[in-house]
């Protein structure tokens, strides 16, 4: 093992480690001496094991890939027909991946070096979010990620109930959809959190959320917020007709 004095850096993954070995040994990337690099790579993995370090699966997978390539290189190439295209070098895919990885590694360093907002350059301080909260303009559409984060916040306040309970009178999604639409009638918007009033059960939270997702899917409502992490507002996309009776069957929704 003393042949290569290992000073391990924090390698990000097997590709990173291989690139390091190639550079260190001044190997030609398009013509990697596969036996030598495999030996070194396995040596490092062994050293890690000796140090009781967990080796992530990716490193083992690469070890297997290297051994596979090595064995393929040892086999004589059978050329049955002269006209047949020569088989691709077994190392070709690995080389492509290494070069590709190197490209993104380089560019990520370039990006990091450039002037970054909040580190190297600054803008005017944003107004306090509280001020914006009540503003009527400047809404942006709420993405799925924000919506799920909002659900998580609500659920966190409603710990899971550990009681075994059989409750047949569960609120259906359809009922909840109609309830939400009724609530929206004559209003411009409802705050997301207002739909989850105190005393609402965890199961009802889920049903309400499913109802909201259905309403968005049917283009009945839109979620908007005026600032990230701000209050999420529910807007009717079309004016809710006073007399409209929503025809939603449980069957259409796919829950029961």
């Amino acid at each position: 093992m003393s042949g290569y004095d290992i000073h391990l850096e924090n390698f990000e993954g097997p590709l990173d480690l291989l690139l390091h070995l190639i550079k260190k040994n001044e190997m030609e990337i398009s013509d990697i001496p596969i036996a030598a690099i495999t030996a070194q790579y396995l040596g490092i993995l062994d050293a890690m094991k000796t140090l009781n370090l967990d080796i992530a699966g990716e490193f083992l997978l690469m070890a297997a890939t290297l051994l596979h390539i090595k064995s393929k290189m040892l086999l004589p190439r059978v050329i049955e027909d002269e006209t047949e295209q020569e088989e691709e070098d077994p190392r070709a895919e690995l080389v492509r991946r290494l070069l590709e990885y190197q490209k993104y590694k380089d560019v990520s360093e370039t990006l990091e070096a450039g002037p970054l907002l909040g580190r190297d350059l600054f803008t005017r301080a944003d107004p306090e979010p509280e001020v914006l909260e009540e503003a009527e303009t400047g809404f942006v559409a709420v993405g799925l990620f924000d919506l799920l984060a909002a659900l998580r916040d609500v659920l966190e306040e409603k710990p899971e109930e550990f009681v075994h309970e059989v409750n047949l009178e569960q609120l259906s999604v359809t009922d909840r959809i109609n309830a939400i639409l009724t609530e929206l009638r004559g209003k411009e918007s409802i705050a997301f959190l207002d739909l989850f009033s105190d005393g609402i059960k965890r199961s009802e939270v889920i049903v309400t959320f499913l109802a909201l997702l259905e309403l968005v899917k049917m283009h009945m409502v839109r979620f908007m917020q005026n600032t990230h992490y701000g209050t999420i507002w529910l807007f009717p996309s079309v004016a809710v007709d006073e007399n409209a009776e929503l025809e939603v069957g449980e069957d259409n929704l796919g829950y029961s």
Partner: protein
Amino acid sequence: MDTHDLVPLVEALIFAADGPLKAERIAEALERPPADIRAAIEALEADYAERPRGFFLQEVAGGYQLRTHPEYADHLRKLGRSRPFRFSRPALESLAIIAYRQPVTRAEIEYLRGVDSGSVLKTLLEKRLVRILGKKDVPGKPMIYGTTKEFLELFGLPDLSSLPTLSEFSELAPDTETEVLMDSLPLLVDGEEEAGGQETE
């Protein structure tokens, strides 16, 4: 109002805006042809370049924003204006891959990096540098990811086409990075990635 008066007016709007302000948006607000607005913006840019100023007009995320000059960063940080963050290498690499290859699936990112990228992706989503664009129409319907407006703002890019060009073939220069001794090895462990991806407050 002639074009001359338009310059300070445009400056006022850009100054007061919460984020990068689009020229079309200014044109709309002032009810002036976009060409006039662009001329005013150019005049502003020239004006800032001419005189010593603490800030400059940067074209970013499709709009214009006043930003302080990078050389004053140290002093501004002392004012507590900074939210100092350091990107972890996994986060940066993943972000670069997403930026250049979008729309891209998690599997594609992982193939390119050779490591699991779930937790890094989650961090990037939480930091709003990356968003879910939709689902790819292949078996399993994997999510596809792309970068956000915040990504452009962070790196000061007018749009995605202004990303630095990828080198087609990069010479593998001898390693210049400082090598760390064996006993400080970590990072190869799962989960380490996530910890590394966090912002330091």
